[in-house]
């Protein structure tokens, strides 16, 4: 009797947990919006957040993951991200965000706000790469070359440079934040630019007291 009731509960649970599979129209429409990169730039008193989103449909094996870039300007990061989320039919998945793009025009206060936001937002991994560029929207809003998204292209470039030993960036979020916490004022992150061939490493952006100060050139060999 006991075994029978356990089996019954197990069967019931299986049916209930798989319930959404029987909903009409759900098959073939299991779309997920994975954020691969987030860009931040300043527009007057407001902040513009750009999200590169890859749409994955796990129910339809034939559908290729497709990237799109969405931007929203608001007076705070949370509001801007809500603005982007509202234009999507399902919640964004920030867990796969691999790159945080910092605009060179950002003020020190805004950059601190971004650091604080990334710290508090559990969904953003602490190992996300931080890079800099003049216009984050323009950088992310282009065709990816070597992967499904520009964000992952950038991660690939950084990974490759580190593996070949050409240049060692310590530009993951926790590495920069750790230095800031220890009171170090100066830190740097790779500077990327968009060219006809996609995104390229174009230098190193130096920040002092959370404000971009200069773009340091790196040798052709390192590029």
């Amino acid at each position, binding site marked *: 009797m006991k075994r029978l009731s356990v089996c019954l509960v197990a069967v019931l649970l299986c049916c209930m947990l798989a319930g959404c599979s029987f909903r009409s129209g759900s098959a073939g429409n299991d779309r997920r919006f994975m954020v691969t990169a987030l860009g931040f730039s300043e527009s007057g008193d407001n902040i513009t957040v750009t999200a590169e989103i890859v749409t994955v449909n796990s129910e339809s094996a034939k559908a290729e993951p497709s990237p799109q870039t969405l931007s929203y300007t608001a007076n705070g990061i949370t509001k801007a991200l809500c603005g982007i989320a509202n234009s999507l039919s399902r919640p964004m998945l920030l*867990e*796969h965000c*691999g790159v945080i793009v910092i605009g060179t025009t950002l003020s020190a206060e805004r950059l601190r706000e971004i650091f604080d936001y990334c*710290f508090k937002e*559990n969904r953003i*991994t*602490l*190992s996300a790469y931080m890079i800099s560029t003049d216009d984050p929207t323009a950088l992310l809003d282009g065709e990816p070359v070597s992967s499904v998204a520009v964000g992952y292209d950038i991660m690939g470039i950084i990974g490759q440079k580190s593996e070949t030993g050409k240049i060692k960036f310590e530009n*993951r979020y*926790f*590495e920069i*934040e*750790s230095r800031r*916490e*220890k009171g170090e004022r100066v830190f740097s992150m790779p500077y990327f630019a968009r060219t006809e061939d996609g995104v390229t490493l174009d230098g190193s952006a130096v920040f002092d007291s959370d404000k971009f100060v200069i773009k340091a050139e790196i040798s052709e060999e390192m590029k």
Partner: protein
Amino acid sequence: MTAEPTYNKHLVGLTAFFILGDAIISLPVAESGGASLLGFLVAALAAVAIFFAAVPIANCLLLGKGRARLLSAPLLLAAAVYAFYNAGLSLIKYTDFVSRVLLPETPRFFIAALFIFIAAYLASRRQEVILKLSLIFIVAAAVTVVLFFLLSVKDYNAENIAIKKLPDLMELFSGAKPYIFKISLPALLIPVYSTLFTGESRIRAPFFGLLTGLGVTALCLLESLLLFGAPLAKRLAFPLAAAVSTVTVGQLFSRMDGIVYCLFFAAALIKTAVCMKLAFFALSKAKSQP
């Protein structure tokens, strides 16, 4: 004829989990000031000292005869209260973790109720159940912690734990204080549990368990400190989970936090269940004392 099982290995696992408990979720603690690592070392030594001080007291009062037995009721009562307090701490810490990371939109009350139900169920089972679970989980926990520690080696910054200036006594004490509450004082309950449930004086197994627990906790603390540095690690609500989230193996395994979430659950569950069991057993024993 088969020999009666001694459950020594199991007791090692249970004691180790008792030390890991909620400490693994929150170490290093924000209140430890500038002496995080040294504070932990002092607290670890204090845990060993407290354990050895508690063993003869527990043996004398719980196994002794005559007058000594008269004093066992207050000891059991105190142990029950402290065990309940520790169960509460574990519950609060784990509930906080789940409500902030895993189920942010679920009411905290619901999470706590579910956790209490599972812990109470486990506590109500025979002692062998919790002992066997502890042995299985401690092996998995130790392997997991060592594996993640090694996987993070490439990102460690030795400067993060370099001691540039030795702290004075006051600094050291204030650094050690939060760790003493988290890992040293709970060592008081280990001899009481061991004596109550085995009915004999055992030192080796609980002591090795204590050392294992302290060792695994130290690895978790070191990982967070080496990776983030003390100032950032102390700001993080769940440093070990954050440290594990930075580990990537190839392109496929980029978020392995889930493994450490299971470890948090096992540690908090076993500590809460053991505390509940100990509290109830101590109270019933105290009631039956002359």
